């Protein structure tokens, strides 16, 4: 099993979710995160005081999938999240040793 982690633009979350559902992915975990890569931050002004905001809001998705599906899922995320502009995000894949479904105790691929 693999853990696919994707950090993408927040407004692309719907597209990514839909294309993963179409692939038969059963679940995912999503969190709002802040980060920066090559995309520059921005400035904000409150009552005349300027603030440099280096971190940009992103959405982080975590999806555990069967080994066979990992590439397909990764490509789907890349396709759905891409705009071609700087700041589109990153996807990386990690090996997963074990997965357990809390309710039933099922293990491995059955727990996905």
């Amino acid at each position, binding site marked *: 099993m693999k853990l696919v982690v994707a950090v993408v633009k927040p407004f692309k979350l719907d597209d990514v979710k839909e294309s993963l559902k179409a692939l038969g992915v059963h679940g995912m975990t999503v969190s709002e995160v802040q980060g920066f890569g090559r995309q520059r931050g921005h*400035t*904000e*002004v*409150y*009552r*005349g*005081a*300027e*603030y440099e905001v280096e971190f940009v809001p992103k959405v982080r998705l975590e999806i555990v999938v069967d080994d066979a599906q990992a590439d397909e899922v990764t490509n789907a995320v890349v396709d759905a999240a891409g705009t071609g502009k700087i700041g589109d995000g990153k996807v990386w894949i990690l090996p997963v040793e074990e997965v357990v479904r809390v309710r039933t105790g099922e293990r491995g691929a059955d727990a996905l």
Partner: protein
Amino acid sequence: MLAAAVTYVPYPSWLNPGDNTWQITAATFVGLMSLPGLAVLYASIVPKKWAVNVLAMMFAGFSLVMIAWFVWGYKIGFGANSFGGGVKDGVQTQLGRGGWTQFIDNFAGKPGPVLSPQGEQGQAVSAANTIIPFHFPTASLAYFQLVFAAITPLLFLGSVLGRIKFLAWCLLVPLWSTFVYGVDAFLLWGGGYFAQEGSLDFSGGYVIHMSAGVSGFVAAWVLGPRLLRDRQHFLPNNLVMAAVGAGILWLGWNGFNGGDPYYAGSSAAGAVVNTNLATAAGLLTWVALDAWLSKEKKPAFLGAVNGMICGLVGITPCAGWVNGQGAIYVGVICCVIVWVAWNFLSKVPPFSKVDDALGVIYTHGIAGFFGGLLLGIFGDPNMLEYGCGHLDSAGQVVATTATQYATAKGTCVPFGVDGLAYTGSAHQLWEQFRAAIWVIFWSALVTFILMQLLKLVLRGVRYKDEILEVGDLAIHGEEMLPEDGFSTRIGAGVGAAGMSEASLGGGGREPDDPVPTGAGT
């Protein structure tokens, strides 16, 4: 005709229910400007770690002035008798005398309570109005003046927040209210020296806003700056809540300026309209300046709030005495001056050396100063606070025609303000300037003395850095947005925390049953 039999009546003949209704209503509007208006505005434009501290100081400050005002303070500002006897039983006895004697004998009222039945319910008597008897009881006048007294220290909380000790604040507020606010209120409003000389302040451009700005600035100087990290990361926590607070301030100002004629008449109505005109003009001016001339060239919302406050503060000393056109000028001029000061003067000493956290010296101090001066320019003699006509023996208006009201008849001259733009005379401008210099001097001096005194008694008026690094949690044990999932009750308190489910009669409940979905299709 026989006199009617004596029976139950709701009020005596000197009381006018319309005037009394408006006075209490206007006072409540002004009270809402503090709680929740200003409390919410300030608490939402500080970082999360300071919001609770601001709220706690706001509510405690309001309560402290409330008690101080009714136990002794009201009569310092509006009592019928001054120290030295210049004002006696609500009558100014030394008009035109001149010199230091008149100044000293008409400096402050003798303190005393407004707590007795007659004290609350008897007809208001104060040299704050020597032209027509008050049409409402002392309770109405005292409560109306209380909400002004209360908001003033709350305004300059914006200068000192983020480091002042809670206890220092709780001592400063009643002391400041007594020795600064009470004195200035008597001198300009309570029939004291400057009122007798002809200096005017419709609703507090000097007594409230400029005084708050100057006092906050001096107090911030004595206190020293916030932590460096706080100064570098002082982001607002919620702009939507800032809008709620700001909106309550604006519309609450209808009571602030609309209540100050003391009669629910044309002057009140004119003051309300002028207040709103100046505010809209001020708001739009700041937005335009931000959009066109600021470095970012963006119409910032908090800039709009600043402009709104400049308009409100600028029109406050003028409200019922300028016409609508004058009101727009006042809003625009005050806003331009404050915008320039905010962006440029702030880089020059002493402004660059004092950490006035929310910039109260600009939006209240400078706007109030110039608003008061502009009254001397745009005061329109035809905007009447009082016209001429007939009063019956109880002081109620009878049989007064519109023509009588608006034009001089016999010994009565309708009361309006002679501004430079309408009369060519700079006399009023000079009277305004004198009073402004006094208020700046007195507010700065007494605030400095009080802060030094508190510093000595409390062994410092600011928290240690370890406390300032944490903020609300260290000072109050509370957070603005606590996370219930990460915390578990460990101690006693209301709400039966330690009791079992069964002993509370809730044993049969299965809280984790799934919520049924799709019902009722």
